[in-house]
């Protein structure tokens, strides 16, 4: 176990793909348990059942997925980048939980059944539904922020920087979650620093006094003057 704790994920998967290597499997379970448990616990909590029994069962089910189809995953995993397997593990664990609860709800409610709706039922409009005052105000705000952003998010990373801003403020992702996304290519510190700079710039622009529109009637050019109007 001493030596196995230091071997690469690639080598560990290779050893686990051969049946009978108990030490490799012990190391596999030990190394990835926390990651799997975390993903399972959080996803299960979102579905409303994070009891110990359920979480333990789903963790076990996740491990057994690696042995399905003759250990296909272990033998053929493509390690494209250092975090590839970790990312895959998270997705696998989350999908095991999702599938479990979808299946459970389907059985509970009856598969392929559609609930009826009373005749004349009119769903009440929500306060924040499309077309509500809040929604319109938010749309205007998004437009205004977008216009400012277009003015100062410039350069070759313009699109990436703008994405980081929206992912932070509109989607609500944390700096670490943004840094983990594909195509961002920044560390968490880098994302934090970028958001800091962009927010400062935006605050200054949005609070700057608007230039006064001081056009006299005489300079307004040809048009219909009030006295000439009907």
């Amino acid at each position: 176990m001493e030596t196995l704790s230091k071997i690469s994920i690639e080598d560990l998967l290779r050893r686990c793909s051969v049946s009978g290597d108990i030490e490799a499997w012990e190391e596999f379970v030990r190394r990835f348990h926390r990651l799997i448990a975390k993903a399972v616990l959080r996803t299960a909590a979102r579905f409303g059942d994070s009891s110990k029994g359920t979480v333990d069962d789903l963790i076990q089910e996740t491990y057994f997925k690696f042995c399905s189809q003759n250990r296909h995953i272990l033998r053929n995993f493509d390690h494209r980048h250092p975090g590839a397997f970790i990312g895959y593990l998270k997705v696998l664990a989350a999908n095991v939980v999702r599938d479990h609860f979808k299946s459970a709800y389907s059985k509970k409610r009856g598969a392929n059944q559609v609930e009826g709706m009373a005749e004349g039922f009119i769903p009440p409009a929500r306060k924040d539904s499309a077309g509500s005052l809040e929604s319109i105000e938010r749309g205007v705000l998004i437009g205004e922020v977008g216009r400012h952003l277009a003015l100062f998010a410039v350069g070759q990373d313009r699109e990436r920087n703008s994405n980081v801003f929206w992912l932070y403020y509109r989607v609500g992702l944390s700096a670490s979650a943004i840094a983990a996304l594909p195509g961002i290519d920044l560390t968490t510190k880098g994302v934090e620093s970028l958001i800091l700079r962009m927010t400062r710039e935006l605050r200054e622009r949005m609070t700057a006094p608007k230039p006064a529109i001081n056009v006299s009637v005489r300079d307004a050019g040809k048009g219909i003057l009030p006295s000439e109007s009907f």
Partner: protein
Amino acid sequence: MGPHLNDGQIEELFRPAWNGNAESPFDRGALEDIQAHLKTCDSCRERVLAQQRVMEQLALLKSNAPVSPGLLCPPDGVWIEVAAGIANPDAEKYLSHAMNCDHCGQLLNQAAGDFDEELTPQEEAQIASLASSTTAWQTKVAVRLQGIQAVSPAGSAPKPGWSSSMVAFLTPSRLTLVAALAALILLGIGDYRLTARLSSQSLQASADVNRLQRDVDLERAQIAELTAQLNKPAPSAPQPVQEANVASLTLDSGLSRGTGEMKRLSVPSGAGIVRITLHSTGNPDGVMREELLTVDRRKIWSQELRPSDAERKSGSLTLLIPAYLLTPEDYLIVLSRELPDGPEQVATYSFRVPR
């Protein structure tokens, strides 16, 4: 009142609200000075309030209300992959969509939250309290995982079309050279296959040895645990809870004929240990070995026994077996004595665990 606040000082007032991790160039005293100045300077206060309003507006950019999916929204499962950082040719397209779609933005946020590295203290406690966080659980699962049969690593199969391309390559002038090369290649392939086969066999053999060693270690640990329980001093008061966790059976030697004669052992749910007392063991002495087998002679459990004085006198032996091993089936117990020239079978017992 002092001079007006500069940009850096105003910036500092907003830092804790959204980027508390960043290093602050201001100490506590300087921050108190800024707050004191704001109480007396209308101009700076107005400037700070204006920026505060912008920050409040930025907080409104995120939609928290549930939103229905639109026609262009990708399947929900996509967001788990994006949040996990899995490279996908469409990942950037999906991200652009999420930034403009509140439904997908919320799903992405949810998925990112599930994969966030930081654990809350409550989550830490929950994970620590799981059975799957114990070494015993993890070892048990590892044993089961390694036991699931996998195919041996695939050998290098010859690629289709190899012979036809070689034939096309051959011309009379190159025949001698090609024949020599072919001989060398064939020798190389033979050598490679032999090496690969030996390497695979070696890997398999070493894995088998490891597994057997692990089985032995596990058994030893379990025997030690059971023996420790058996040797515990008798408690002064009866302990019904512990006793309820033990299922007991007494057996006489000899194989049973027919289902009616076979002794039955009911293992109640929650039983952790099965205690089996074997009678007619002759003179149990020295090192005895017990093997628990199914009727088709599949070994379930074995252990070495050193009979106590009382057991030697009474001619009976008591075994402790983990209850989880005894699934509904018919079983044999083969008792043998370890002798210098090999084991000598002493007695055989049979029983049934009914459904």
